[in-house]
């Protein structure tokens, strides 16, 4: 075993892990270890394939290295500068992409509602957007499997959508914001339920992985879970992959794809500790997320003869509403997204396509202060005094549909980063549908917060999550990959992450990314 392999083995509590040579032509080279890459790597390795995982960030040891301190956890985010353009510039960093083994799952809130069947048939149902080339039914067994593997706590029965098996664990306890949202919604006859969250409400033996501790309500999911209760990839699918014989290479930033005369990728160049290394592979799985995946494709002029790479960038309408309450909320405690309502999934009489879910949200003080400054423009003594009501602050949030537009896109800028590679520019203009949905959502949230007794209410318009920049489709002219994630142009390249989403779904993306990742692996294996 190499010294690197020993470090990884010890970090994940394993006796031994495999290590491949750079001249070995591995069966699968997986770039990115977030929800797109990790489940797939585990599945392929379990089937006996030789698998190497490249991760740009490091392998954190959450138990000893994760501080309950927002600024100290800054390194969990993808902090290479992205340039946000358009009329609705998207905030990155703290949002959207992770840095480290586990990728974005290191800082996802663990909120894992399933998308609804009609989310996959937006075009058929509303005349807008596009349909997925995959039916909702096809993903059901994968949703079941992911929920059991990572350990999802949720209400059984679940009030919305088709009948589904019980969640493996009972719901997590409700914090102040969840109680307030329930109070407001009860007043208005809006149905609510404890939200499905990938955090263990009771100790749970993750199948094939081992026992996990129950969540301690530390509320810090968005800046790293130090207890292992949250089902992030580094404590679930990564150990599964390593046990099945995959090799993990942290600190390895992929930059170049070498293409042979037949148009196949023959090797991937990556930088590690300032050195340039190259790994040969039969098949490459690009799982770097909806910004870095198209960026790598564009940098390497790969799979883009139809000029579709980077286009159709989408982000959820993610409007938040904040208010101050008479009661103490202490919004830093408990699972942040404790409550859900999907009653607005397809609102009656709406003047827009699609819909949204509503969730209660917790928040840490630095994030809250930053949003207060950005959203309300408060400064001076007014800001200092408002912050002294942080303990009484509670928020609710929507996640809503965003229609694809070819002009919302990721491109390369003329500026270069520390690796001397062009920075990505992300242009995003919210269209009429997004604006109408956001206005509807704000009315709904204001009614709920008024009914719950909020004062000093303010909205924070935002767009969150990223999707759609290498979308899947059956039409080779308007998509980048097929339903199995395979590039239309490069025979041995498959994409597995949120970039393949044809529509953004009215649900948080991670569960679907993981389910698709497993399906993509199974489709790959079926073809061998």
């Amino acid at each position, binding site marked *: 075993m190499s010294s690197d392999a020993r470090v990884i083995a010890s970090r994940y509590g394993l006796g031994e892990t495999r290590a491949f040579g750079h001249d070995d032509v591995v069966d699968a080279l997986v770039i990115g270890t977030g929800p797109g890459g990790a489940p797939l790597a585990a599945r392929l390795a379990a089937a006996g394939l030789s698998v190497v995982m490249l991760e740009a960030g490091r392998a954190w040891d959450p138990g000893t290295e994760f501080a309950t301190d927002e600024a100290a956890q800054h390194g969990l985010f993808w902090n290479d500068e992205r340039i946000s353009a358009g009329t609705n510039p998207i905030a990155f960093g703290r949002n959207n992409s992770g840095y480290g083994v586990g990728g974005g799952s290191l800082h996802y809130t663990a909120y894992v509602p399933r998308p609804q069947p009609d989310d996959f048939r937006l075009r058929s149902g509303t005349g807008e957007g596009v349909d997925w080339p995959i039916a909702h039914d096809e993903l059901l067994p994968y949703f079941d499997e992911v929920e059991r593997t990572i350990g999802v706590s949720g209400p059984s029965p679940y009030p919305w959508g088709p009948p589904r098996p019980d969640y493996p664990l009972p719901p997590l306890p409700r914090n102040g914001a969840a109680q307030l949202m329930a109070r407001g919604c009860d007043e208005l006859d809006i149905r609510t339920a404890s939200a499905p969250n990938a955090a263990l409400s009771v100790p749970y033996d993750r199948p094939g992985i081992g026992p996990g501790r129950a969540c301690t309500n530390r509320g810090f999911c968005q800046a790293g879970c130090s207890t292992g209760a949250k089902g992030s990839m580094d404590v679930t699918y990564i150990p599964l992959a390593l046990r099945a014989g995959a090799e993990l290479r942290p600190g390895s930033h992929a930059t170049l794809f070498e293409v042979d005369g037949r148009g196949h990728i023959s090797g991937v160049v990556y930088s590690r500790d300032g050195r340039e290394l190259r790994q040969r592979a039969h098949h490459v799985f690009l799982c770097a997320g909806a910004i870095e995946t198209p960026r790598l494709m564009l940098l390497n002029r790969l799979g883009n003869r139809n000029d579709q790479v980077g286009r159709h960038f989408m982000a959820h309408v993610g409007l938040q509403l904040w208010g101050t309450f008479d009661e103490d909320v202490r919004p830093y405690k408990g699972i942040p997204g404790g409550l859900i309502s999907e009653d607005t999934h397809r609102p009656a009489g709406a003047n827009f396509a699609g819909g949204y879910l509503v969730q209660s949200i917790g928040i840490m003080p630095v994030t809250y202060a*930053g949003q207060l400054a950005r959203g309300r423009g408060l400064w001076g003594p007014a800001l200092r005094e408002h912050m002294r009501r942080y303990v009484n602050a509670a928020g609710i949030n929507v996640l809503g549909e965003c229609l694809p537009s070819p002009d919302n896109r990721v491109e390369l800028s003329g500026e270069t980063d520390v690796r001397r590679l062009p920075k990505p520019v992300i242009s995003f203009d919210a269209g009429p549908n997004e604006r109408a949905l956001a206005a509807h959502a704000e009315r709904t949230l204001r009614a709920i917060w008024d009914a719950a007794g909020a004062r000093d209410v303010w909205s924070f318009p935002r767009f969150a999550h990223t999707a759609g920049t290498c979308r899947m489709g059956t039409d080779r002219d308007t998509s980048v990959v097929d339903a199995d994630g395979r590039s239309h142009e490069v025979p041995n390249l498959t994409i597995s992450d949120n970039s393949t989403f044809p529509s953004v779904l009215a649900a948080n993306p991670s569960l679907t990314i993981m389910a698709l990742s497993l399906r993509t692996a199974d489709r790959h294996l079926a073809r061998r």
Partner: protein
Amino acid sequence: MVDTTTARVPRSPYATFDLDGLLASDHVSAATRRALAERRAITAPPVPRVLSVPQMRVLRAVAIRLVPQDDQEDPVDLADRIDARLAAREGDGWRYGALPPDAEAIGTAMVNLDQSGWERFSAGFADLPPERQDEILAAMQRGEMEGQGWEGLSPALIFEELLVEMVETFYAGSRGQRDIGYAGMADLPGWDHIGLDERDLREPIRVQIDNRQDRTGQLTGE
């Protein structure tokens, strides 16, 4: 350091919160304690690293207006933290496409603010009375700045970025966290009381302060 004729920050209702005691307790992990202690120990070098001395003087004056700390015995040097970040070439993962890179945007904005001080009130920004500084900053926030220096440099967006960074820096530290009664860092072994109006015993309570009568505050339990 701040003119007493302008609005001051009243005393915190969490004036009795013993954050240092809490940080020393078993409720705080070693990693968390280390992070807060390191941040608190930072001191500014005599000469700024990236910004010029005159630019730094304006930035310090801006910081006092945006995040006043006249109630703090040992205020955080927010301008220094920005200069340190620029020197380390660190960022938060994105920037507005309408702005140039951070060091250029901030440096130029400080030069422009100084220029606005001379044009409007015949003195450099840092030497103006607080009311005049606030007037200029409010115009900057509204995007109403004139002069060639602002071409290709949205005043409102730079204002927003500076404000967010200063505010986040202040509340990332123990001074800001004590001020708002935040005990979230003391999360060991876990939180038992997470509902409305529920409190774990180690979390602080608010006390009523009469700021009108006495700046030292009359403390009474709520």
